[in-house]
């Protein structure tokens, strides 16, 4: 197959995939009697038309960056970590335990501690599948999926039986102390001029951006990253070079789980202020799509996370303000995943002929 120029590979292919996904979504909306033009208007308006919309879009983006980066790190080691959802939920538990442990005086102290808790719990949840893969060859996809269910059940048990304050009706932890509340965009000096109403996007967004840089440095500038990528590309060659498979699988999965767990400082600490059941709300799974679409590169993950943040927020607005049901958001997301992930090769084949003649002229 013709090799596409880099710009086409990175920009054109995803763009065409998106247009195709949008076109089919439009057809479905027409089919159920809706107005696709109105739907797009409501989505764009709701997600990007106001500081309030941006506040939600960037909040979702933050969560998806963490889970997307988690999938990315494991992917480079050749490990398909499907367990981001469970790892994010456990990260939430870590955040809750840290936040409730002390009467935190200020968020600048609580945030680093909560990050450690989130990352440790997320990593711990990835550790068992990683160990089983590294030592016993149990397939990581199967074990991480299973651990999602175990995580959900464990959290519900803990919320109902252990962490719920006496007399409280809903299965949730007590509210975190005031000093553990992260400032939202509406509370950050400078940003508060733009975000005048309360929005869920908070300082975690900047932590997520730092995490993107960190993951890039890890994968392409450190020895561990070199070993992770080498092992992911060729297990046999890594063995020849003296790279330990056990070390690479364990460390990459711990980092992956830790990143997914870090998502909890966004939703549990930054937004809810307490741990609820199903706190990750599917962001762990969306992380897979984000990593896939972002070509497993931190910059791509950032862009893809933003796209899915837009779809999430825009889709919610669409469900709210039009007769189109909110479930259609799932359809749009599904189509985006289908075209950017599964049908990627098809799109490439479609555009390849346009690049062939031009190359010939150049010769």
């Amino acid at each position, binding site marked *: 197959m*013709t090799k596409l120029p880099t710009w086409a590979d990175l920009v054109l292919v995803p763009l065409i995939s998106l247009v195709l996904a949008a076109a089919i979504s439009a057809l479905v909306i027409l089919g159920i009697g809706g107005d696709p033009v109105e739907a797009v208007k409501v989505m764009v308006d709701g997600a990007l038309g106001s500081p309030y919309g941006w506040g939600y879009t960037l909040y979702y983006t933050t969560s998806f960056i963490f889970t997307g980066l988690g999938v990315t790190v494991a992917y480079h080691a050749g490990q398909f970590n499907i367990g981001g959802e469970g790892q994010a939920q456990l990260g939430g538990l870590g955040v809750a335990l840290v936040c409730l442990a002390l009467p935190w005086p200020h968020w600048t102290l609580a945030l680093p501690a909560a990050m450690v808790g989130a990352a440790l719990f997320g990593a711990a949840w990835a550790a068992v599948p990683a160990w089983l893969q590294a030592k016993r060859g149990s397939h990581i996809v199967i074990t991480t999926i299973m651990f999602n269910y175990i995580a959900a059940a464990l959290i519900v048990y803990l919320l109902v039986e252990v962490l719920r304050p006496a007399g409280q009706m809903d299965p949730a932890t007590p509210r975190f102390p005031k000093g553990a509340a992260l400032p939202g965009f509406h509370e950050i000096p400078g940003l508060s001029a733009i975000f005048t109403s309360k929005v869920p996007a908070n300082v975690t967004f900047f932590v997520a951006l730092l995490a993107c840089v960190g993951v890039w*440095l890890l994968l392409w500038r*450190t*020895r561990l990253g070199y070993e992770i990528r*080498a092992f992911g590309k060729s297990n046999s060659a890594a063995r*020849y070079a*003296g790279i330990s498979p056990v070390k690479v699988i364990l460390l990459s999965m711990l980092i992956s789980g830790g990143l997914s767990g870090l998502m909890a400082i966004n939703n549990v600490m930054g937004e809810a202020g307490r741990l609820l059941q199903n706190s990750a709300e599917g962001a762990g799974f969306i992380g897979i799509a984000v990593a896939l679409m972002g070509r497993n590169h931190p910059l791509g993950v950032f862009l893809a996370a933003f796209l899915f943040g837009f779809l999430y927020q825009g889709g919610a607005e669409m469900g709210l303000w039009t007769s189109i049901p909110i479930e259609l958001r799932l359809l749009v997301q599904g189509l985006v995943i289908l075209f950017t992930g599964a049908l990627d090769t098809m799109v490439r084949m479609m555009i390849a002929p346009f690049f062939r003649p031009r190359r*010939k002229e150049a*010769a």
Partner: protein
Amino acid sequence: MMAPAQDTGRQATAAPAIELRGISKAFGPVQANKDISIRVMPGMIHGIIGENGAGKSTLMSILYGFYKADAGEILIHGREAKITDSQAAIRAGIGMVFQHFKLVQNFTVLENVILGAEEGALLRPSLAKARRELKRLAEEYELEVDPDALVEELSVGHQQRVEILKALYRQADILILDEPTGVLTPAEADHLFRILANLRMQGKTILLITHKLREIMEITDTVSVMRRGEMTATVTTAGTSPEELAELMVGRKVLLHVPKAPANPGRTVLEIRDLRLRDATGVERIKGIDLTIRAGEILGIAGVAGNGQSELLEVLGGFAAATGSVRMNGEEIDLTGRHSDGQTRRARGIAHVPEDRHHLGLILDFSAWENIAFGYHNAPEYQKNALLMDNAAIIADTEGKIERFDVRPPNAFLPAKSFSGGNQQKIVLAREIERNPDLLLVGQPTRGVDIGAIEFIHKRIVELRDAGKAVLLVSVELDEIMSLADRIAVMFDGRIMGERLPADTNERELGLLMAGVADSAETAA
């Protein structure tokens, strides 16, 4: 060796079995075939020789209908043939035996033979017919294969026979073989050549594509040489020499045998005692080996692939566990794999150019510079600080190595998979040799490497020896062992069958040892 076909009388009267006129084919800017014309008379074996990427495979793919030529025409027995796909090629009487077999592993031989040539809705009549036909072909051409054996249980040589049978069953009278001996043992290759000679006697026409000069000289009647998409010459085999063919292939004079001074062995570098290895299934692959390698000598391990040489390299390279004793520079090294790996071996002065550069020696998706750091990525000169690697230093180092080893194209950022086999091997060699190891392990150094690069690689290995280093060379190419090694150990079934000096032995004796026939005169190793 077999006698070349002498009956030229028949060929003069008939039209050529295959005639290509002005075939051209371009892939984008790359002109893979440029105005190529060949005439092959019926009942001849015609060789097509050229380096990797010279356009041999493209030409054969055009003949078999995989590619459509941009220009030119194909005549089969004097009539123009429109070969649009492989079905059309089969109808025109062309059969193809690919380098990588296209057999269904869990089908029997019989089922594979009729696959795609079944007649009617029921299999039974077709199978019965094929069984009769196979019996006849087996008798006629020395093509014995058990028709009821599963293909996955057959040796590589037998699998190849199934491919030939498939073609003959489809009434092919022109047979194309693409690098047929690449996967065969010398004995299997000899058998294949007997089959080909039989086929020639029956009037079949054979096109043999290879990069091995020996095979061309041994079996073909005429030979065409390709270089960079062009046909540079067509000559009769009897009227040429390997040296002339090599020059035509590469475009300059090539040394087929690198000149080297007698070895001057010094102290013992590596001492192997009673080395044994069991694989994951419990089969003993190395059954007690004793070897000694001295500084300043090349020890060649000859043997048919799969007799424990790969395992030997893996153990010494640090990524397979074994029992016994290996002393490097007088110090015991850990064979259990619990306290050692490829990294610790490198630290002990052992460098390793593995047999399989695609799966072991290189990460094909990594750029050249990333591959130069491979295995040495913990080296202090490649680190910027405790945390980060110094990519700029690796790139600078790579550019030096590329220049000194003449890697083409000289681009450190190109992924390894974009280099030709010879240049990939140069990257691996540059990485391992320039570490100045006490012991260099080299497996199949010139497998899939073009002739020009072979000369270069051989020179570098001899240079390393002359610098007083020990070299352990494993190769299935007897030629290579004979011309490089200072001492030859033959391996068979996990044992050393004997050691010989190149001057005191010949290919026949080594061939017998490789087949497991030990003689009484064997010196105790």
